[in-house]
């Protein structure tokens, strides 16, 4: 009787041990799988960097540093320089940010301070839907609707307005093509607006109510509370949102490709066609014949990758700082 129960207990112990071992094994397998997937994310970014460096090696070793400072881009003589696309990328992104930041902060203030509560969520969603629209839609809209509108109404007006004023007249020199640097900047501004708005609104929400209430308590107006309390408190977070928007604008491809005009030259006028790094790659990559041509285009990609990496890393660093402050 005891022998039977002992045998039963020991066999139960054995199955129990086997089950525990099996559990431990599956757990280890699952744990390793998740860990490897996490490491794969790192490998992906590393792979992107390595493949871009490898692909651009031929062009960079031929042209060296002068690749960055040469304006000429001539596939026939195989002489390539990145200055015009770099110039176009920076100018269009900078103007886009200058336009989008005040509007984005304005919308965030509206949503956190002014908007009636029932409308807050729908309007917030509508602005975020702007972020979800694929960039090719902005491109086709920009080319067929926005650019003709600028060409027939806005640009001739601005050209005649600033005619004869030194500086401004060359900045807005005709003829009005419709497409060009300024059109691309405006489209980019629309595209980065939702990113800046939603991040600014999120960081505005992190301001402790007691800070704002004490400012209201001593008689501050809404604007004074925003200007003196909310914005100083969230400055780092807003900067992070702006940098994130800038990263988007620098790398944006399709919308810009439609409306920039694809001209490899630097002109003083914002109405003139230009090009950006991403637009050049999108337009010319499949047609590039010759290794040097392809390699030059990959070099452009490498430059874009480095610029956006730095900007996005700064953005994340700033947003991390505001996160750690609210977490504490």
């Amino acid at each position, binding site marked *: 009787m005891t022998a039977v129960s002992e045998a039963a207990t020991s066999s139960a112990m054995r199955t129990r041990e086997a089950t525990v071992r099996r*559990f*431990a094994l599956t757990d280890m397998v*699952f*744990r390793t799988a*998740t*860990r490897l*997937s*996490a490491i*794969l*994310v*790192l490998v*992906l*970014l590393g*792979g*992107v960097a390595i*493949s*871009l460096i490898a*692909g651009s090696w031929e062009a960079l070793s031929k042209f060296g540093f002068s690749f960055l400072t040469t304006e000429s881009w001539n596939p026939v003589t195989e002489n390539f320089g990145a200055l015009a696309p770099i110039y176009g990328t920076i100018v269009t992104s900078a103007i886009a940010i200058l336009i989008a930041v*005040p*509007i*984005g902060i*304005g919308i965030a203030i*509206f949503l956190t*301070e*002014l908007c009636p509560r029932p409308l807050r969520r729908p*309007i917030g969603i*509508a*602005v975020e*839907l*702007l972020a*979800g629209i*694929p960039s*090719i*839609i*902005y*491109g*086709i*809209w920009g*080319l*067929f*609707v926005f650019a003709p509108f600028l060409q027939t109404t806005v640009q001739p007006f601005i050209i005649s307005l600033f005619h004869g004023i030194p500086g401004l007249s060359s900045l807005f020199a005709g003829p009005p093509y419709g497409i060009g640097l300024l059109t691309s900047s405006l489209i980019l501004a*629309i595209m980065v607006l939702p990113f800046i*708005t939603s991040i600014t609104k999120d960081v505005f929400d992190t301001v402790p109510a007691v800070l704002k209430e004490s400012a209201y308590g001593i008689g501050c*107006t809404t*604007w*004074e509370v925003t200007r003196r309390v909310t914005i100083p408190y969230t400055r780092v977070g807003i900067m992070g949102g702006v940098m*994130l928007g800038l990263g988007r604008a620098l*790398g*944006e*491809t*399709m919308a810009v490709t*439609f409306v920039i005009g694809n001209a490899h030259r630097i002109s003083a006028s914002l109405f003139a066609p230009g090009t950006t790094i991403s637009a050049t*790659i999108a337009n010319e*990559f499949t047609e590039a014949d010759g290794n040097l041509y392809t390699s030059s285009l990959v070099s452009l990609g490498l430059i*874009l*990758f480095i610029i*956006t*990496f730095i900007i*996005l890393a700064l953005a*994340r660093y700033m947003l991390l700082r505001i996160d750690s402050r609210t977490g504490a």
Partner: protein
Amino acid sequence: MSTAQSLHQSRKRKNAVMMTLCVTAAGIGLAWLALILGALLYKGLSGVSPAVFTEMTPPPGDAGGLLNAIYGSIIMTIIGIVVGTPIGVLAGTYMAEYGRFSRLTTIVRFINDILLSAPSIIIGLFVYELLVRPMGHFSAIAGAVALSILVIPVVVRTTEDMLNLVPNALREAGTAIGAPRWVVIRSVAYRAALSGIVTGILLAIARISGETAPLLFTALNNQFWSSNLNAPMASLPVTIFQFALSPYEEWQQLAWTGALIITLTVLGLSIIARSLTGRREDR
């Protein structure tokens, strides 16, 4: 007294001006959305007909449809999601469960956030160097891989965020009755975070179904019906790109119709995704 009053007046005026500007800014944002959707509906709807969904992309100057482009987009999106989602969910699981406090998680989160907003054309170049150049030709597989690389960061981010929202008491309850860690994750954490993870996948579908840049030199384009994954394949965004920049009226009309289809798909997916998480918050 009068100076105090005038100061008060000027402060109130300034406040009124600034607040009006903020309302104007919100109006501008909404007006832009309305303008873009309005133009899309106006130009796109007139081209919607059964032929769009039953006929192939036409040669220049002919009437036709977008069937092969729609098919290609769906196929590459499905493969991209099927490849990218498990990797993203697993990586997110590591970050929220096994390695919540490890150094690796901090690094991966940082790098993932950068991948999330990295220019998609760079991903296209990467896949070109990785697959297209060694294989010697453009292929639908390369396009799908490029899309899956875009899926991963979106899914990683939402999975980690959603798993972090699951209360620890639930996990502890599972562990207390003797369930090993992976059973707790599978039957407790995943179940509690399911709607959030599905939201992430829907957002990823929305993101890649409109992506053009990474497909330009991976999947290229194809004017004919092709279900061969090892050959170039048409996709809706690339077809729109090609047709919109062409001088032919029929092509431009098809581009508008295709743009309308993509936008409605993407907006529909984002609204469904939002309503999924919205219900969560209310609960």
